[in-house]
């Protein structure tokens, strides 16, 4: 919690993500807007196989550190945002389930939308995370990969 009472909640874990829990957590009497982004695993393949699930892998410590940095930059850019959560699931995730959930609350909606979009864009560019596509007879690293960049360059 910072001097203004604002809180961050960052988590990288194998447990299923619960957007509703994060939304409840982000609800504050002074906030009229809560914007949630759920990134769900979808039926698409970079390897040409009939993918049934994805498997995410990272260093929890490095990933959580970068997520905290993403939120710090978001708070510099949108000082009015109040609660910010970034949760990323690791391990096997079935198609259609959320792999990442971001929630931002703020008094007014514009900054909540902008900060949430900034957070997911920057998480994708700057957080260490690797995705394997898994199909019934095998698996391979996703080909949709790009060089990791520092949060301030993202």
């Amino acid at each position, binding site marked *: 919690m910072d001097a203004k009472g604002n809180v961050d909640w960052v988590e990288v874990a194998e447990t299923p993500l619960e957007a509703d829990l994060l939304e409840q957590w982000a609800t504050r009497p002074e906030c009229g807007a809560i914007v949630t982004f759920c990134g769900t695993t979808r039926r698409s393949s970079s390897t040409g196989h009939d993918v049934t699930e994805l498997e995410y*892998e990272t260093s929890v410590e*490095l990933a959580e550190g970068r997520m905290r940095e993403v939120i710090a930059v978001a708070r510099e850019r949108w000082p009015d945002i109040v609660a910010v959560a970034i949760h990323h699931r690791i391990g096997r995730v079935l198609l259609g389930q959320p792999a990442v959930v971001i929630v931002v609350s703020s008094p007014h909606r514009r900054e909540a939308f902008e900060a949430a979009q900034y957070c997911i864009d920057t998480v994708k560019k700057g*957080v*260490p995370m*690797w995705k394997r596509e898994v199909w019934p007879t095998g698996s391979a690293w996703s080909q949709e990969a790009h*060089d990791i960049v520092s949060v301030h360059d993202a």
Partner: protein
Amino acid sequence: MSRILLLGPAREAAGVRDDHIEGATVGEVLRGAVDRYGSTFEEVLKVSKIWVNGEPSSREQAVGPQDEVAVLPPVSGG
């Protein structure tokens, strides 16, 4: 002797997730890693970014026993 952390495709190519390798600089540790893990790892290393203790690093950076060198291939999160 520094700790080396091998992530995603680098972990798979090396066959281990973390290890300890001799070297006075990041570059020396990485050369030691190529010697130990072979050419598949070397290919992954070529396209990877290197962090030391969570921050981007150069190959010239000095490292010691308390330092963690992380090999980060292209990422695909979210």
